[in-house]
């Protein structure tokens, strides 16, 4: 009997109700984990940097040999050797400095070096899919920088937060543009398109989570705009999966698309819940007549967003994926508009309650 029981227990291993992990989640989580792990690593030493370091060390030996001996050749070459040193020697510090720069944020001394090293990596990459992976990784770094900076609010940091947000927006916009370019160029190779779309989907999910957990009282508008942009790029990546899947019946399964859309629906529901809580908090700070009017306006927005989410859920159940992703996009847009409205109401309430004689807050 024990053997039978042991066998039964082993048979439970692959049952979904007994903790068998969904293979799609495992794969997606792997990509997100790799991205997070890479963010903690020193910048990859490019072949060019190694080559420069090698040349520089050889140059030093050369200089010692010619100059120290006091030969006629040493004297003759002194001028050009000095010029070579000026160009090459600073580059020996490149690799060490880039490693040190990895944890820097806007405002730190080495931040410029961090950005330059990223640009070097992009310029040395010819494959478009690899570029998308790199840019997604860099966008993820920008999101981490935003979160780190937002945690220490002061006048100077606020400017840096905005700088990081702007860089994130530029990076993610470029990712989307690269994805569109791949779609246009690689029609005969849909696997490449699908791989790129998956990378973008994973990256935008991870970045959205970071931004959602970033708490800040300033630069909120900019961060909100970045969140909207990231969501939109993520939705666009899923749409790419759907349209590419419709062109070929191969590796993109209905289950993968369903899982990806369900993730977006869950994200929209979470945002909706936050918005509802924020509405209650905001309307309690205004006068009763104004609160009533605001409440009606917000209720209408929230209802439309909820309807859109429900539509998305129903569409997924019926495997109408294009409609589902459209509804998710609609829901997120409605939530975003409601958040902007809430933000402006909160600002005007703050202004009205500021003591007279104190300067009004400007945006």
């Amino acid at each position, binding site marked *: 009997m024990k053997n039978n029981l042991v066998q039964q227990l082993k048979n439970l*291993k692959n049952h979904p109700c007994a903790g068998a*992990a969904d293979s799609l989640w495992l794969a997606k989580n792997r990509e997100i984990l790799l991205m997070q792990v890479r963010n903690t690593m020193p910048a990859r030493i490019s072949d060019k940097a190694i080559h420069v370091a090698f040349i520089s060390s050889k140059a030093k030996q050369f200089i010692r040999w010619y100059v120290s001996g006091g030969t006629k050749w040493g004297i003759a070459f002194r001028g050009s050797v000095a010029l070579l040193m000026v160009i090459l020697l600073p580059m020996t510090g490149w690799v060490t400095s880039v490693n040190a720069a990895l944890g820097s944020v806007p405002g730190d001394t080495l931040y410029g070096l961090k950005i330059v090293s990223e640009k070097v990596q992009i310029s040395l990459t010819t494959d478009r899919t690899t570029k998308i992976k790199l840019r997604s990784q860099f966008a993820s770094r920008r999101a981490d920088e935003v979160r780190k900076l937002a945690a220490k609010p002061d006048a100077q940091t606020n400017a840096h937060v905005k700088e990081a947000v702007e860089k994130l927006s530029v990076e993610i916009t470029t990712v989307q543009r690269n994805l569109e370019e791949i779609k246009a160029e690689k029609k005969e190779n849909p696997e490449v398109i699908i791989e790129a779309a998956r990378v973008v989907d994973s990256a935008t999910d991870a970045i959205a989570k970071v931004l959602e957990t970033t708490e800040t009282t300033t630069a909120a508008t900019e961060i909100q705009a970045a969140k909207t942009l990231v969501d939109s790029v993520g939705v666009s990546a899923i749409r790419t999966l759907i349209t590419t899947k419709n062109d070929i019946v191969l590796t993109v399964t209905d289950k993968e698309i369903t899982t990806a859309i369900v993730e977006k629906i869950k994200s929209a529901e979470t945002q909706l819940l936050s918005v509802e809580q924020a509405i209650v908090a905001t309307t309690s700070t205004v006068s009763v007549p104004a609160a009533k009017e605001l409440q009606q306006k917000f209720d209408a927005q929230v209802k439309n967003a909820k309807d859109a989410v429900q539509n998305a859920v129903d569409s997924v159940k019926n495997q109408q994926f294009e409609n589902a992703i459209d509804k998710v996009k609609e829901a997120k847009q409605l939530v975003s508009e409601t958040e902007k409205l809430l933000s402006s109401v909160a600002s005007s309430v703050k202004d009205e309650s500021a003591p007279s004689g104190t300067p009004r807050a400007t945006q």
Partner: protein
Amino acid sequence: MKPQNVKQLVLNLRHHPDPQVFAKIYDGYAPKIYRFIFFKVNDENDAQDLTSEVFLRAWSAIREKGVEVERFTAFLYRIARNAVIDHYRTRKQNVTIENVRETEIENFVAHTPLESLENVEDLALVHKALGSLKEEYRELVVLRYIDELSIMEIAQIIGKNAIATRVAVHRAMQALKKILNRLST
């Protein structure tokens, strides 16, 4: 994942932290860690979040402190246990899969792949019995018979010696059989 492969990967990781190597370790352990956590929290989303957290913590620990190659499995499972404890502390709840409702057996059957439908009711009963075990016993049964860890590995995870662990596993199985008999009648 074969022990020799794990040792080699962990050795490589210790001397040269490489995300790709870490990814291989993830591939080998993620399903087990997920299942281990799932049996404790009984929620897919929580289990997914905690699994991610376990691997991130493991990565940090490897980079900062290094880890004994021989005890890597125990190291990972201990992180998982601690992550679940922290999760309970945060959520202030202690959800277990005891008292599985009758309808969940229907759910179990509904999720069973077609090719495994033979004896599915026996399987569902075993699953329900497992849920009714006290947590300490359930953990032992999962580690020994589902994750198929050795007694030594389990001992390292739970912090007991091998003999005490073997006795505890035996007791857990006895308890499971008792519950199964009760459910079958």
